[in-house]
């Protein structure tokens, strides 16, 4: 029963997020808006933490599993990706390192 109630709340916020982005033609995905919506609702106690806890933890615990199938989609592009192999690897590594370090350093600087 708890899980069912939690699922209903989660899907309700998803639907609200999707409806809002569709109607307002926002470039932001509905799920992200729904997440913000649920967070606000939890903050203001419109939704109680206990009512979504069980189902939400279920989804979060399985998050890694949900990423497996789309990851294998890379195989569809194997030929093109390998054609530019080392250039792409270098680009992804360099930009990710720069980006991650920027975030870490700016945060450290501002938080001193």
């Amino acid at each position, binding site marked *: 029963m708890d899980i069912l109630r939690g699922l209903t709340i989660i899907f309700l916020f998803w639907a609200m997020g999707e409806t809002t982005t569709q109607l307002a033609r926002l470039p932001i995905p509905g799920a*992200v808006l729904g997440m913000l919506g649920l*967070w606000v609702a939890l903050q203001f106690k419109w939704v109680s933490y206990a009512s979504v806890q069980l189902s*939400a933890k279920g989804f*979060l615990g399985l998050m*890694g599993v949900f*990423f497996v199938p789309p990851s294998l989609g890379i*195989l*569809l592009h194997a030929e093109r990706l390998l054609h530019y192999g080392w250039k792409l690897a270098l*680009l992804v590594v360099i930009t990710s390192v720069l980006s991650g370090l920027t*975030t870490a350093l700016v945060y450290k600087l501002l938080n001193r």
Partner: protein
Amino acid sequence: MNPVLIAIVLIGVVIWVAGGKVEDYLKSTEALVFMLSPTVICLALILYEQTAALKRQAFAIITAVSCGGLVNVIAGVCLTRWLGLPEPFVQAMSTKAVTTPIALELSKSLGGEASLTVAFVLLSGIMGAVWGLPFLRRLGITDPVTSGLAIGTVSHGIGTARAQQESDLMAAAAALAMALNGMLTAFYLPYLYVWL
């Protein structure tokens, strides 16, 4: 080792050995991918749990994530063009640090290739999830909030899933960075991309 990476490699090998088609595998696992959207909603719970701990640093977090995201987009677009790669790759590089659903929307408005976009999002995610923490640790960055923010900015949901194995606080920081970077990028990229 990352269990998700092990699963990806194993399934890839099985499909290859059995002579199956990746397209068939993707079609039959659509239900699993569908679950990603409600999982995004559930990240609100992690955010809520850690809001009190992160509230005081709101300004630092928003500024840090915006800077990291901008560096990724600008460096990605400029370097990819500089190396002379075709335009679909340039577009895919610009959205690679953004969570898949947002990247797909952006790809549409930039006129990119959807599946290539997803491939780059995943490359960025897997790379950060596997090497992000060891790399930061080697530089002496062990603070869960700093590491979480960096990993969430670069590796979105895949990085957040990895951060979740470390601690709830790191997962919250990663989820927050993912959400912020995704939203901010969705707002500025369509304008910035034309300009770059």
